[in-house]
C-alpha cells in the first residue's frame, strides 16, 4: 500500500507539526481520544505534582497536536496559567492565551461547521463545556497579566523609609536639647525659689507682727523656714539649671556653627532679656 505522507510547514510560535495520515484518516472518536488522553493526563499530573508545570504544559501541547484533541490543548493553557500565577510571569500567561487559540479554532469548528465522523475528539454535548473552560482560562490569564502589570507599576514600600526621612541628627543637637532641658529646669527652680521667698516674706511679717503669739508665731517661723528652704533649693536648681543649660546650648550652637550651612538652619539658643530669660530658635528662611 502506498504510504501517503504529508508535509506541513507550521510557522510561528514553534508549533509542532502534527503527524497526519491525511488521505486515509483513522477515525478519531470521543472514546478513542478519551482513552489516549488518559495516559497523557496521568503523566502530566505527575509533572504538576512535582512542580514542573512547564513540562506538563509542553506534554499536553505536543500530545494535543498529535491527537488533535482540544481538551489537551486547554489543559496545556491551564498549566501555563498556573505557572504564570505561581511565578508572576507575564510570558507564561501570554503563552497560555496563545495556546488557547488553536483550541478555540477546533472547538468553534466542532460547534459550527460541517464536522466529520473521521474527527470527533469530543462529543457534541461536551463542546460547549470545553469552550466555557477555555474561555475561563483565557480570562484568568488576561486578569493575571493585568494584576502582574499593576503590581509592577505600584511603588515599592520600604519599611525603613520613615527612618531615612528623619535623617541624621544635626551636629550639636544633643547638647542643645540637653541644655534646653536644663534651662527649663533652672527656670522652674527659679520659680520655686521665688515662691519660697514669697512664703518666707509672708512668714517674716507674721513673726514680726506683735499681735501674733505663741502657737501662731511658732507656725509662722516654721513656714518661714520652709519658705527659705524652698527658696534656697529653688534658686540652687535655678542657678545650676540655667548655667549648665546655657553652657550646653552655647556648646551645641558652636558645634553646629562649625557644620555646613545647610545643617545650621533653625538653631535654638538662650535669650537673655532685661525682664528675664528664655529659649529662642533662630534660622534662615
Amino acid at each position, binding site marked *: 500500500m502506498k504510504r*501517503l*505522507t*504529508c*508535509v*506541513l*510547514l*507550521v*510557522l*510561528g*510560535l514553534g*508549533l509542532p*507539526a*502534527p503527524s*497526519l495520515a*491525511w*488521505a486515509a*484518516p483513522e477515525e*478519531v472518536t470521543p472514546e478513542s481520544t478519551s482513552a489516549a488522553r488518559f495516559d497523557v493526563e496521568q503523566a502530566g499530573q505527575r509533572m504538576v505534582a512535582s512542580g514542573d508545570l512547564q513540562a506538563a504544559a509542553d506534554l499536553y501541547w505536543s500530545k494535543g497536536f498529535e491527537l*488533535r484533541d482540544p481538551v489537551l490543548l486547554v489543559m496545556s493553557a491551564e498549566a501555563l496559567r498556573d505557572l504564570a500565577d505561581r511565578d508572576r510571569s507575564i510570558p507564561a500567561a501570554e503563552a497560555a492565551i496563545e495556546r488557547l*487559540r*488553536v483550541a*478555540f*479554532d*477546533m472547538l*468553534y*469548528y466542532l460547534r*459550527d*461547521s*460541517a*464536522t*466529520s*465522523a*473521521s*474527527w470527533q475528539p469530543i462529543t457534541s454535548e461536551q463542546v460547549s463545556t470545553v469552550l466555557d473552560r477555555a474561555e475561563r482560562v483565557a480570562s484568568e490569564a488576561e486578569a493575571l497579566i493585568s494584576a502582574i502589570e499593576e503590581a509592577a507599576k505600584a511603588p515599592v514600600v520600604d519599611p525603613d523609609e520613615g527612618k531615612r526621612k528623619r535623617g541624621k541628627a544635626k551636629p550639636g543637637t544633643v547638647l542643645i536639647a540637653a541644655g534646653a532641658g536644663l534651662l527649663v529646669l533652672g527656670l522652674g527652680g527659679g520659680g520655686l525659689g521665688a515662691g519660697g521667698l514669697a512664703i518666707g516674706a509672708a512668714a517674716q511679717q507674721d513673726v514680726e507682727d506683735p499681735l501674733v503669739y505663741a502657737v501662731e508665731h511658732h507656725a509662722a517661723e516654721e513656714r518661714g523656714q520652709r519658705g527659705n528652704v524652698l527658696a534656697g533649693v529653688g534658686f540652687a536648681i535655678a542657678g545650676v539649671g540655667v548655667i549648665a543649660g546655657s553652657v550646653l546650648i552655647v556648646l551645641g550652637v558652636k558645634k553646629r556653627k562649625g557644620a555646613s550651612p545647610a545643617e545650621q538652619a533653625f538653631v535654638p539658643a538662650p535669650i537673655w532679656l532685661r525682664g528675664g530669660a528664655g529659649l529662642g530658635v533662630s534660622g534662615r528662611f
Partner: protein
Amino acid sequence: MRRAWTLALPIMLALPIMLVMVARPAAAAEVCDEQGVCIDGANWESGGQLDDRARAKERKKQAKRKDASLTVELRQGRGSVFIDGVWIAPAPVSYVPLKPGKHDVEVRDGETLLARGILDIPKNGGDVKLTIGDE
C-alpha cells in the same frame, strides 16, 4: 500543390497542441473571489460544504488518481485549516496531499470564519494554492 502542403502541415501539427491547451482548465491562473480567497490550480466554490456521504463518494471515485498537493496561506492574521471535516494545522500549511475531486476546506480564527468553500481539484492534480485575506 506543394506550396499548399507547406502551409497546411504546420497548421495540422499546431492544431492538436492548441486544442490541448484550450481543453485544460483555466485553473492555472490565480482567481480571487469577493471574500478575498484566491485559488490557483483548482476551482473554488465559496461557502459550500460537504457531508460525510459526499466526501466518501468523492474518495471512492478518485481513489486511483494521483495526489495533488494543497498549500494554504493567510495574507495576514492567523487561523487553523480544516479539510473534509478534520483539523489539519494552523496556517500556513504546505503540500498537503489530496486526491483530485471535491474537498471542503475551511479556515477559521476561533469563532471568526476566514474562508469556507469546496475545492474542486482537476483530475491531473498538480499544485493547488489557496491564499486567504485581502492584499
